[in-house]
């Protein structure tokens, strides 16, 4: 069967400075990141003929037409999957390019998560949260952390997973942010710091939660045939898929609270890529909360369901560990850019441009997205 394997590449990446506090509009932030990604690709803004704006962002396709003077935009969709949107958009972009609909597709994201509207109000405005809004928010379940927490609690009760295992993820991710140079959290933390940080919604402490921040990130996807002659070393999309749990937003509809949409998407993406888990040199895993990393490791099959706690111990996710993960500092410590920063970092790693966080000789890696309490997306890429 003809698939999207190796048909497209990430050809451009761009980021603004990540901050907590900023006087730029979310629209300006995503234009700034987009211009950086387009320049990185060696293109001009008018070369963009496809755009997949973040579904809950401030900019729509029209903004890119008018800001960039694009005369013939041929493709624009959105992927309304919360934090799974950015990686799911790679699938959509690759499909459009492979079908000949568009040539260079821009995936932009910009937000003022710190300076502007905070997560509870942002999420309440998502159409896919209508059910949560009517049947859960009136009881006090207002913020995402309060809906992720019961998943983590169930995992802890059934499998014996511990808060200290969550702390391993938090500390390792902070270590990586410190190496990055563009991260909002730059102070080292210890397991003890995590264990004494403020309880937000049990079992999640402050250091289990991602950091609301301001900034923008963007990538450009182009066909592999063109990418070989473009400015950067191409990063090939080997496999890509999205997966939805039985109910993405309303966690009550899911037979098993500890299994996510990624469990359905990952086998499809690996089959398309034609590689196994052992090929993965570096992983950028959506980390809105520490637990979500642990759960996704299980759902991808790096360990059995219930064994994620043991898997992440002893620095397994560090640069010298068995699976270097979130080498940029993730949403937990670099910036909450809804995972667009994870895609940027994977491309950087596979180009060999990740500086002091470079995983030596990284050839193949993966990036995941996770949103709406369970939607999943995954892309496997190679240099």
């Amino acid at each position, binding site marked *: 069967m003809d698939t999207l394997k190796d048909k497209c590449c990430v050809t451009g990446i761009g980021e603004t400075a990540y901050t907590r506090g900023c006087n730029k509009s979310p629209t300006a932030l995503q234009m700034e990141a987009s211009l950086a990604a387009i320049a990185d690709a060696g293109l001009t803004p008018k070369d963009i003929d496809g755009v997949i704006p973040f579904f809950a962002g401030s900019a729509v396709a029209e903004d890119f037409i008018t800001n960039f003077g694009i005369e013939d935009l041929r493709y624009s969709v959105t992927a309304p999957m919360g934090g799974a949107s950015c990686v799911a958009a790679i699938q959509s972009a690759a499909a459009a390019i492979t079908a000949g609909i568009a040539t260079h597709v821009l995936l932009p994201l910009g937000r003022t998560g710190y300076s502007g509207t905070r997560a509870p109000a942002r999420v309440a405005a998502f159409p896919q949260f209508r059910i949560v809004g009517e049947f859960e928010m009136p009881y*006090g379940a207002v913020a995402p952390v309060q809906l992720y927490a019961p998943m983590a609690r169930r995992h802890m009760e059934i499998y014996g997973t511990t808060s200290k295992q969550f702390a391993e993820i938090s500390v390792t991710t902070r270590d990586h942010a410190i190496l990055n140079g563009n991260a909002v959290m730059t102070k080292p933390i210890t397991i003890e710091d995590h264990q004494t940080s403020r309880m937000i919604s049990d079992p999640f402490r402050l250091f289990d939660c991602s950091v609301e921040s301001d900034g923008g990130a963007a990538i450009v996807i182009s066909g592999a045939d063109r990418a070989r002659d473009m400015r950067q070393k191409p990063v090939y999309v080997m496999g890509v898929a999205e997966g939805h749990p039985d109910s993405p937003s309303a966690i009550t509809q899911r037979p098993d609270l500890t299994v996510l949409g990624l469990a359905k998407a990952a086998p499809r993406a690996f089959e398309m890529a034609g590689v196994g888990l052992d090929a993965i040199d570096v992983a950028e895993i959506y980390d809105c909360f520490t637990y979500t990393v642990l759960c996704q490791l299980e759902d991808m099959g790096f360990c059995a369901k219930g064994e994620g706690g043991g898997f992440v111990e002893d620095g397994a996710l560090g640069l010298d560990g068995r699976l270097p993960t979130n080498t940029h500092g993730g949403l937990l410590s670099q910036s909450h850019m809804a995972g667009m920063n994870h895609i940027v970092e994977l491309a950087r790693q596979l180009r060999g441009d990740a500086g002091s966080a470079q995983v030596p000789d990284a050839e193949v890696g993966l990036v995941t997205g996770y949103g709406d309490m369970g939607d999943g997306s995954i892309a496997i890429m190679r240099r």
Partner: protein
Amino acid sequence: MSEPSENRLLPQPTEDSQPFWDALKAHRLDLQTCGDCGALRHYPRPVCPECHSMAVTWTTASGLGSVHSWTVSYQAFHSAFQDCLPIILATVDLEEGVRMNCRLDGVDPEKIEIDLPVEVAFEDVNDEVTLPVFRPRASTGDA
């Protein structure tokens, strides 16, 4: 612990859910029921996921259930809940086989565990809205 203030995020019923909220006002927990195959479902929705029938009836639940999972929130995230922290939010398996998220009251957070038997109570927020709240069962013995 005091009750949430009235400026809370009150539900906006739809054509599909109005009977659910009306039943709560009468202090009943009613579950949407397929008019063809009889499957129960919650939250209310127009189509039966088992047989795709759009025929709807309603069944009054026993109000008995058990804790599937939970969280204890120490931050309110909305001013309405500021004065009643910590809030316990439980995912409850009803005896009828459906699951719902709800507030859990009247229990020491340290004493919550999976399968804790709970029962529904009704909180009249105002003249228009009654919300369900779960509490540990008064008696879980062999009565």
